[in-house]
């Protein structure tokens, strides 16, 4: 074990240069010990390699990429060539067709690029989340990453400006001696809590809407379409609240993530909730089959929404702050009841 560094006294005039301060010179003698002091804990840099070794190999679909890229590239070349030949030959119709082809290729490429870009953003978000979780929750506050830089990254990702009141009140509350864990608590309260509430309101509203729509829609096919549409829209908006812009692929990926979460991680929760859900659905079904169906769809949407909140929130919820389905159930049910009542009156 290396010795702890001794104290050091500084003079008050601006940056004290080592030449004028004798005590600083004395401190220099300890430089070898400084190399391994707690400031520069340099030994956790090999963990990425270890992680990479443990993780399952990442699948890169090189073949698909090559075919896709090749098709796009060759299509471009062919269209350009035929455009060139047709302008030489004066065949305007063929030229116009190849122009349209070029345009289509360009649009496709642009869409692909955008998707890739957004996917990258999703990945970065996931990484930030991982960092926040690992370093803040694990207590092992890595000394080389300042919690404030992570906080700032989060701020810019959530689209808050530097003088947004939430960020300002966070800065006001934060003090230099706060540990990573404490900083995380403050971030959760000052930056994320307002968004949580907005997201909750959104989930309540949209699941209520879905419930009503499914209840009044006449066809199963329409039900399915409605569910898909509302759910994806909700996912988008929740992600946007937490600072994520979703493209098609990233949305799919998130959707898959959420579904997987619901299927595996949430299994126990489902068991406890499902009983209650079934009960209330039965109750509703006794009143009216439609309402029962609607309630089921609404609750499913609500659960998906809550899961999406948990998946996209940059800092994981504290155990007692996690939004629960039980809170939403009543609201959905009330919305349906209103509908039922007004239908009866008619």
């Amino acid at each position, binding site marked *: *074990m290396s*010795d*702890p*560094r*001794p*104290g*050091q*006294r*500084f*003079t*008050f005039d601006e*940056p*004290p240069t*080592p030449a004028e*301060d004798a005590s*600083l010179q004395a401190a*220099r003698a300890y430089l070898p010990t400084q190399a391994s*002091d*707690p*400031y520069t804990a340099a030994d956790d840099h090999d963990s990425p390699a270890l992680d990479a070794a443990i993780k399952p190999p990442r699948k890169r679909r090189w073949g698909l990429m090559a075919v896709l890229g090749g098709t796009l590239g060759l299509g471009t070349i062919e269209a350009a060539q035929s455009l060139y030949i047709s302008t030489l030959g004066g065949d305007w119709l063929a030229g116009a067709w190849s122009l349209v082809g070029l345009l289509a290729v360009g649009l496709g490429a642009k869409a692909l690029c955008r998707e890739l870009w957004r996917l990258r953003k999703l990945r970065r978000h996931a990484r930030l989340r991982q960092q926040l979780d690992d370093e803040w929750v694990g207590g092992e*506050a890595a*000394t080389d990453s300042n919690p404030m830089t992570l906080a700032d990254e989060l701020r810019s990702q959530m689209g808050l400006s530097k003088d947004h009141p939430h960020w300002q009140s966070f800065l006001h*509350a*934060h*003090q*230099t*001696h*706060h*540990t990573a864990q*404490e900083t995380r*608590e*403050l971030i959760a*309260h000052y930056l994320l809590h307002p968004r949580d509430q907005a997201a909750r309101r959104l989930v309540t509203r949209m699941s209520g809407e879905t419930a009503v729509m499914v209840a009044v829609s006449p066809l199963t096919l329409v039900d399915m379409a409605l569910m898909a549409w509302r759910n994806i829209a909700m996912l988008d908006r929740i992600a946007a609240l937490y600072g994520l812009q979703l493209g098609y692929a990233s949305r799919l990926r998130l959707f898959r993530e959420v579904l997987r979460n619901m299927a595996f991680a949430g299994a126990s929760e489902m068991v406890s909730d499902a009983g209650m859900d079934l009960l209330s659905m039965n109750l509703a079904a006794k009143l009216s089959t439609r309402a029962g169906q609607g309630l089921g769809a609404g609750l499913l949407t609500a659960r998906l929404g809550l899961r999406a909140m948990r998946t996209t929130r940059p800092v994981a919820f504290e155990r007692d702050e996690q939004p629960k389905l039980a809170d939403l159930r009543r609201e959905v049910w009330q919305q349906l009841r209103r509908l039922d009542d007004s239908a009866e009156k008619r």
Partner: protein
Amino acid sequence: MRRQLTHEFQNLIDRGRDRQLRLAVTGLSRAGKTAFLTSLVNQLRHAGIDARLDLLKSAREERLLGAQRVSQPDLGIPRFPYDEAMTSLEASPPQWPEPTRGISELRLQLRYKTRRARGLLGDTATLTLDLIDYPGEWLLDLPLLEHDFLSWSEAQLKGMGPARQQYAQAWQDAVAKHSADETVEESRLAELAAHYADSLRQAREAGFSHLQPGRFLLPGELQGAPVLQFFPLPGVGEDDRQALEALPASSLYQVLKKRFRFYQQHVVKPFYREYFRRFDRQIVLVDVLGALNAGPERFEDLSQALATLMRSFNYGKRSLMNRLFSPRIDRLAIAATKADHVTPDQHANLVTLLESLLAEPIKDLRFANVPVRAFSLASIRATEPREVESDGKRQAALRGHGLDGEPLLVYPGDVPAKLPEPEFWRRQGFAFTPFRPAPAGPEALPHIRMDAALEWLMGDKLR
């Protein structure tokens, strides 16, 4: 009488509804109990206005409305001298509050908005917080209750390290002239006891903390009474018990034993019964930096003192029945005080060191399933964290004023994460600079992590 009864009844109702909390602020002398209590009252008085209590959930959610000092239940005990402490902090130059010389009590009433409306009860609630301040020296008498005179004598003399021995040597030589069975004159006894008290005082000056009996250091109203004229008898052990018990009542051993018993029964026990039995929560304050400054033997001594001390409290889960009739401590905070005397990046080490200092009691607490959390704490922050450019490196530093008023900009040195070898003290040692408090204004006192400690100790009652 009737008033007394209604008062007791009200207390019982409050305890039954879990609206009353007795917080034990435990710490040896100079651990910072008075500063903690002063800051606690100050922060809670200023809560919701200008106190920075962001880690206290109810304050962060703007539900804590504030606190008031109310008249305490026992009118026979002095009130905690909050105003005097504030006066000395607000003086120019500011000074730390005077060390405590006697027991004082404080009752605070906290008002807060509940998280959910409680129907007819409205949405505000109150919590009564009872606090006691006392000299830390007396606290070390509590472990005395486990001993009789013989085992105490043995334990006292066996536990001494070489450095501690050095202060007791002169007294031991004086006692060695007498044997356990001879009759010693009253005046000679008083002389020897005074000598013993003197050796304790010297050891305290040198930084030791495990010193018994505590009243010898701070006699209070017992100054000069024969009950304070006893001392451990060297050279006796468990093997001699039968022979010693058979000695006549006038023998040195019997006289000392009688006085020891009297001390136990009439000084320590009432103190324990009145003030230390009924606690719900506890915070143990430890001056880790002071112990580091003082050296390895004193560090070990402090660790032992705290371990024996914490055996005197009742720990365990609470239920309605024992909340009413035999309260137990169901949650505990341990805090390394004076955290403002090191730079913020050293706080993690300070906490680790504190945990290793209290390793034994923590194991027992885990066994009793009582949650414990360690904090680095500064009840009243005396310094400001700064950064200094030195040798082309950014270097953390502290800015404040020394005890003599000299402005300082220092890096106080590293805090080790575990106790270094004794050899290290001979080579380098620690020299954490003491600071005087920053000038206090009308706003709340600056602090480090008081809010986190409060959240841990009573956050669950402020919902």
